[in-house]
């Protein structure tokens, strides 16, 4: 069981068919216009404004609204107007499924309740992220889902400690990293002690004994674990309207001096206290 979106849950439960789900998504696509299309529909930008913004986005990585603001095409108030309109007219997948006849309006509340129960394991708890760091909820998801996946996959209770700012990754331990892109620019680094690495390996390889496994295989299991956490972070973020993309995981082993957090990034450190007395370390490099 992973973080799911409602349509996927319904498909898995056999409550809707693939054909009707795709029909509902098609309906959503026609109603839920992107920022630029919404601004155009509200006559706040012209076709040539849109082209100008898109051209500028090819040179500089920025959201449509941010670029429109930078180029003086839209002001803050107009951006608020577009966002409000998008919010008001947004068609959710459940409503779309009712409109295409896949579900009845009467079934929807019951199915939503069942979905909430199914996903209760992944309800995130609150962790305080230092002020000024963009997209704080995404970094909360990273910490919280790391802990929840340790329980779900490895069967190990884990408590997330307070987040503190750091300027380097500690030396020594093997680190599994994943680059996070899309609406965010960050990287996820999970450092695990050998005992935890072996527990992750036993769980992911479905083996009782991993003492004969190579270092490469053992480390790969931690990379896969980080990949699973970050994929689920992307899923959770999408439920909150944040587009997070992940790249294939990478391995690091910081030398004796550790590894400095890049100057353009915050280093967010979360201790992950394990029920067996051990501790894993999660460090996020988040672009300022």
């Amino acid at each position: 069981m992973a973080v799911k979106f409602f349509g996927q849950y319904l498909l898995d439960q056999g409550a809707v068919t693939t054909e009707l789900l795709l029909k509902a998504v098609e309906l959503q696509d026609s109603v839920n216009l992107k920022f630029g299309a919404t601004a155009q529909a509200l006559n706040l930008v012209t076709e040539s404004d849109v082209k100008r913004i898109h051209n500028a986005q090819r040179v500089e990585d920025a959201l449509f609204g941010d670029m429109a603001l930078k180029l003086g095409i839209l002001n803050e108030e107009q951006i608020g107007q577009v966002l409000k309109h998008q919010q008001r007219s947004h068609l959710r997948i459940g409503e779309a499924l009712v409109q295409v006849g896949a579900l009845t309006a009467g079934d929807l509340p019951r199915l939503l309740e069942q979905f909430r129960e199914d996903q209760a394991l992944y309800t995130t708890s609150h962790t305080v992220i230092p002020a000024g760091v963009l997209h704080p909820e995404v970094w909360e998801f990273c910490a919280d889902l790391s802990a929840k996946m340790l329980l779900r996959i490895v069967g190990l209770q884990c408590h997330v400690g307070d987040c503190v700012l750091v300027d380097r990754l500690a030396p020594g331990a093997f680190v599994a990293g994943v680059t996070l892109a899309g609406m965010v620019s960050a990287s996820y680094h999970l450092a695990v002690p050998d005992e935890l690495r072996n527990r992750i390996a036993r769980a992911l390889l479905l083996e009782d004994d991993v003492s004969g496994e190579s270092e490469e295989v053992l480390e790969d299991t931690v990379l896969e674990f980080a990949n699973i956490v970050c994929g689920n972070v992307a899923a959770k973020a999408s439920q909150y309207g944040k587009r997070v993309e992940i790249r294939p995981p990478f391995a690091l082993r910081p030398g004796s001096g550790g590894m400095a957090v890049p100057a353009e990034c915050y280093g967010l450190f979360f201790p992950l206290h394990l029920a067996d007395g051990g501790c894993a370390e999660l460090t996020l490099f988040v672009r300022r």
Partner: protein
Amino acid sequence: MKKVVIADDSIASARHLEKIITGSGEFEVVAQARNGLEAIQMYRAHHPEIICMDMNMPGMDGITALRTLVALDKEVKVVMVTSLGGVGDKFTEALKLGAKAIVSKPFQPEDLLKALREL
């Protein structure tokens, strides 16, 4: 027994999948690929009934490989096994392109086998 190709850049994940698939006694893993391009090559070489493929792989990713596989053979049966299954856009993109099922990581072995048996 139905022939299966596994495409996953993670050795650990590929072994996990192989153990579940072969352990069922209903399927045979005939080859493994580490990226999308290799998956296409393995499909051409082994003509499996099913491909279990990750989305997030270096080089050619799973979505690009899925698009190519469906272009080669409209009847190809691809099951995406991915940590990104819960991302609505990715899920529906894979379905639209012709994936027969999407299994989100982490999963119970029975979830994967159910998806394979339904093909």
